[in-house]
């Protein structure tokens, strides 16, 4: 095997590292990605026999032109931003929680359980304490589920990727068990869903006539809180140090175990809150499918937002838009879901790839012969 003999860059375009990351490019790369998306989208939609401009308009702009579309955008982005913000805390510290989906489900179960109990225990279905109570329960539920990988990682060294992922499936079956069995609606002909929550257990609307509810504010608060924690506090600094170089963190007296716990509990807590927001907001009951994979999509959102709370907010809104746009493409142009998935993937590729320009510039020359510069291995 003669790997040594391989040469990849012979000439032509070449990436050259910048001495410093380009501030301008931080803001310009989304435009580069947008340009590439328009070009690729034009080819794709034209090949499918559709007017490319119209298709792009339908995907990216049409959902934003109505109050309905805008409110739905925020409704869709809320759980994504909540989960992604919590996950980012862990990801910065190299804690690989990929079970936000399960933690979301547990949050929904805990919060929904309280709502169902209150609906039966009180004639008025519970008072103003119920929603805050459900929030606390949701956060606790998510945290409890995330505490399992944290405990197994810190005590038994079990990798959190596997534990958190496997627990996601377990959470789904637990929810299935509850709504098929003990928690199903007694008046619901034995279908697998709980009773509808009472009014006291439903998040009030922000804009009447829409589904936009105050859960969206929770997401904003989480973003603000994470910004303080990660960017302005000593804990945030510790997380970053441990994430970049665990040994250095150890020398500095920062405990790796603490970062594991913090990362997982933040991710679990906010994912659990997202679960509460979904069942107390747009869904209003428990049934077998309360999340179409928000916990997984949130991982993309977290990295698309470069693990920065404000970036995550934008990324969450953008990601939500691609789902709304996908539906609109199906409805307006009759394109199958397959095409919207294809296109969604392409858009993400462009966004992720154009980040390279922040750290690199493109040169169109042969590499210099005296190439022996010291290599630099960096974390993402």
């Amino acid at each position, binding site marked *: 095997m003669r790997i040594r003999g391989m040469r990849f860059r012979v000439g032509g375009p070449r990436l050259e590292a910048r001495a410093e990351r380009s501030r301008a490019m931080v803001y310009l790369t989304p435009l580069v990605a947008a340009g590439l998306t328009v070009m690729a989208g034009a080819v794709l939609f034209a090949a499918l026999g559709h007017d490319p401009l119209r298709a792009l308009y339908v995907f990216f702009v049409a959902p934003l032109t109505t109050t309905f579309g805008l409110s739905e955008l925020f409704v869709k982005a809320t759980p994504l931003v909540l989960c992604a913000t919590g996950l980012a805390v862990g990801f910065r510290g190299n804690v690989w929680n990929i079970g936000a989906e399960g933690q979301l489900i547990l949050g929904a179960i805990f919060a929904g359980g309280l709502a169902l109990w209150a609906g039966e225990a009180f004639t008025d279905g519970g008072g103003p304490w119920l929603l805050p109570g459900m929030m606390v329960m949701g956060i606790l539920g998510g945290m409890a589920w995330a505490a399992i990988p944290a405990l197994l990682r810190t005590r038994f060294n079990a990798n959190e990727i596997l534990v958190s992922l496997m627990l996601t499936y377990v959470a789904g*079956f637990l929810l299935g068990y509850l709504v098929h069995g003990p928690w199903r609606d007694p008046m619901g002909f034995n279908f*697998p869903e709980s009773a509808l929550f009472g009014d006291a257990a439903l998040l009030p609307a922000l804009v009447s006539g829409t589904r936009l509810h105050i859960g969206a504010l929770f997401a904003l608060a989480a973003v603000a809180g994470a910004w303080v924690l990660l960017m302005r506090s000593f804990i945030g600094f510790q997380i970053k140090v441990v994430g970049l170089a665990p040994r250095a963190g150890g020398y500095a007296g920062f405990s790796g175990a603490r970062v594991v716990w913090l990362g997982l509990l933040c991710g679990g807590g906010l994912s659990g809150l997202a679960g509460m927001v979904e069942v107390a907001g747009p869904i209003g009951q428990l049934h077998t*499918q309360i999340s179409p994979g928000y916990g997984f999509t949130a991982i993309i959102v977290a990295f698309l937002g470069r693990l920065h709370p404000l970036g995550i907010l934008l990324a969450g809104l953008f990601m939500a838009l691609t789902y709304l746009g996908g539906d*609109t493409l199906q409805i307006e142009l009759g394109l199958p*879901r397959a095409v919207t998935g294809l296109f969604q993937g392409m858009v993400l590729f462009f966004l992720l790839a154009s980040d390279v320009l922040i750290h690199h510039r493109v040169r169109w020359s042969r590499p210099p012969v005296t190439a022996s510069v010291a290599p630099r291995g960096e974390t993402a």
Partner: protein
Amino acid sequence: MRTLIRSGGPVLSRRSLAAGAAAGTLLAASGLSADRARAADPLKVGFVYVGPVGDYGWSYQHDQGRLALEADLGDAISTTYVESVPEGADAERVVAQLASGGHGLIFATSFGFMNATLKVAKSFPDVVFEHCTGYKRADNVATYAARFYEGRYVIGVIAGLMTKTNVIGYVGAVPIPEVVRGINAFTQGLRSVNPEATVKVIWVNSWYDPGKEREAAETLVAQGADVLSQHTDSPAPVQVAAEKGLYAFGQATDMSAFGPEAHLTAIVDDWRGYYIERTRAVLDGTWTSGDTWGGLASGMVAISDYNTALPDTVVAAAEAARTGIETGTLHPLAGPLTDQAGTERVAEGEAPDDGALLSMDWFVEGVQGQAPR
């Protein structure tokens, strides 16, 4: 209810007509009825699917209904579908988007869309909604479902006459009343001709996972089943039966291509007639809300072609059961019905009413395996 207005809300944009539809055909089509002539636009009919059209099962069959509707009513309508719509928060948005986008008639084809459809219907009183397999209705929300259990009784009869081991394997998706009812009807049909036979049930906890369906089917075969039935969407159990030289029944569509020797017949979901009838009613202005629970007699449930290998006596028995059900002389779940514990649930000479059928959550005697929950 004649309050049908073609463009209920702000019309964002009109679904472009196929290139071939020249202005002439458009005019001709709009002349179909006086009512249509006034409205320049064709009626937009929206479909919301829970799975991908390519599942070759539940959503696929609904889409077959949509295509038949397009073929039948031509330019008087245009159809839209949204596939793989999750049953959570997204359902309401999609239904609302269809309603506000000028759809006059919307079919929501999964139980999980029930509350979302009801909510949207309240905001769009001029749009007509049809919800599949639910039980909540409104002035502009009708429900429809098929009595698949009638068909399952018929294939139960066939299974009872074809089994040699007297063990029938049944791959179930999730333990909801619809599936339980089907298992019970199947078992009643089975034991009407073969009281010794029993049904083993394995739940795969998924409507649609070929690999798991295969594993469940293989397990049932290993435990002695020589005829397989399924209430999941993929042809995997039919393939298992074909491999092992056993028998199986197709589900939702005719799956004989996946095991020509093994496939005895299939219970086919046929929504075409209903979709055409209801859409015509909307076009004529005669649509009213209500509940349709069609069975073999209405054609909503169909028994596909019998395997030519079936002995004539078996076909005759199956046809007798089918005729009995169609004419109403035979109720697939007529008493006496006893549950697994031996308690009588339905007395002799009686039959469960639709409410009891709808909420059935217990197994009849002769079914092995975990009762639902």
